[in-house]
């Protein structure tokens, strides 16, 4: 969390509105993520965290509002182009390619890059998640829940993004791995990757985040540095379990 001071704005979202049919899920939120930061969105179930990430990542269409990535509006840009510009999303529910093998899944993650670079990154991912290396030929759909979660994260890393958005990366992971995941996030950040993190585990998320936003029923109700929110009473009561 060191290099946030001189970071210029990497992602800027303004007055974003998203509907599911007639359900108004995101009600005009604005936030930004600066280069080199870890920013986290916290909020109860159904607050709209995943919706926000999916909209930024291009899986959902915003009904209004602007999304700028590195100064360029990406609201109308097709999602796959945004990926090649350096943004990656590790979506909720993993969405790995069930019938492909572990290795093929990882290779898909590096679709926008050339093979040599990809081969290099894959070794790094294998280092971070040795289980994936052990199982590189297994059909991904038969992996255990936690293994799939590792694969999803590994796949997102394969594109070597400038900005990575992680939707509950620790979900379903054993405590020992949760710790590891947060370590990985921090080390990624040290290597210069900007991170937008959504976590149920608010405690840990806030403790590594530079800044955080609190989302409640589609609106941002609070924001500040990770530390300040960690000690904010209302936040403690609502999201940290007392």
């Amino acid at each position: 969390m060191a290099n946030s001071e001189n970071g210029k704005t990497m992602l800027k979202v303004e007055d974003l509105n998203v509907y599911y049919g007639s359900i108004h899920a995101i009600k005009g939120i604005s936030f930004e993520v600066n280069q080199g930061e870890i920013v986290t969105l916290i909020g109860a179930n159904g607050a709209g965290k995943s919706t926000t990430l999916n909209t930024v990542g291009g899986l959902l269409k915003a009904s209004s509002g602007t999304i700028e990535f590195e100064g360029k509006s990406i609201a109308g840009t097709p999602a796959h182009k945004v990926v090649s510009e350096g943004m990656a999303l590790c979506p909720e529910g993993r969405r790995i390619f069930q019938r492909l093998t572990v290795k093929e899944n990882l290779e898909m993650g590096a679709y926008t890059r050339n093979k040599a670079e990809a081969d290099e990154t894959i070794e790094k991912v294998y280092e971070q998640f040795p289980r994936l290396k052990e199982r590189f030929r297994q059909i991904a759909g038969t992996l255990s829940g936690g293994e799939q979660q590792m694969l999803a994260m590994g796949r997102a890393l394969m594109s070597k993004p400038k900005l990575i958005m992680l939707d509950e990366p620790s979900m379903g992971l054993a405590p020992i791995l949760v710790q590891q995941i947060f370590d990985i996030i921090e080390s990624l950040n040290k290597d210069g990757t900007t991170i937008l993190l959504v976590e149920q585990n608010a405690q840990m998320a806030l403790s590594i985040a530079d800044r955080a936003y609190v989302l409640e029923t589609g609106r941002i109700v609070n924001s500040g540095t990770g530390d300040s929110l960690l000690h904010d009473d209302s936040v403690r009561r609502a999201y940290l379990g007392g």
Partner: protein
Amino acid sequence: MKRSKNRFVNYIIVLVFFVVFQILLSTGHLSSLITGQLIPIVAYMIMAVSLNLVVGISGELSLGHAGFMSVGAFTGVIVEAALLSKMDPSALNGNMGMQMLILAVAIVIGAAVAAVAGFLIGIPVLRLNGDYLAIVTLAFGEIIKNLLYCLYVYIDDRGLHFSLDPNSLNGTTVLNGPMGALGIKKISTFAAGCVLLLIVLFIIQNLINSKSGRAIMAIRDNRIAAEASGLHVTKYKLMAFVTSAAMAGAAGALYALNYSTIVPKKFDFNTSILVLVFVVLGGIGNMTGSLIAAALLTVLPEMLREFSTYRMLIYAIVLIAVMLLTNNAKFKAFLNGPFHKEKKEGKE
């Protein structure tokens, strides 16, 4: 709650449909075309709601529904011929009661035989899923059609005879291979069709709203969870499939006894597809939609007759356009316009 309200909507639709057209019919305000189409429309409505039980409620794609209709149709014809051979043909003229009795017997037996066919094909086939099930039902429909091509049935003084040899025909021919059934006595009536449709709706809708129907839908939504909740999957899939087959059989008998001749070829893949189009267009799982789509799409090609050679072309374009429109989010929102607001207000 919503579902049970819909149920009465459907009965009312059928009743209104019946009353309006019966009045128009008896006052001579209907064109010959519409008059002639009333019974086929009712038969297709039954086909559509029964297929919807399989496709919409049970969630299986069936491409051979016309096969069951065919079984019911030809069974119905044979039953009629067998019954008529036992009586003086003139006794039937003007004897509405007798006609209705024969029709009822033909429909019931047609439905029963179709149900048996559904059971036999259902037991093995329902173990498959998705497109594999679809292809097997398609295969079943084609097998029925081809079997009927070489089935010859006749009645002589020793009774009813079935044969595969065209040269064995003797006495009164009932089924003549590819020529199908000839000289059927037309005993179907619009009123009888509507009664049958109401019965079918009654059975299907009450089934859906009973514990069995819930089980069928649960299996559709998540087979593994349904098993884990103690449901025997095959039993309920079979229940939907056989019920649906029986109703298609009933529709077939009603349909067949409205024409003086029917041919096996009528009940081919294209007819199965046609009924599927009714179901999808009317909305999968939506019985009201099935009724309306069946009626409209049966009449549509006839309404396009003035375009002569462009008729089927326009039909194809209409079909594509309707599919695109009904699946277009904006268009849907537009259709739901007024309700839209209500919902929003209700929520906030």
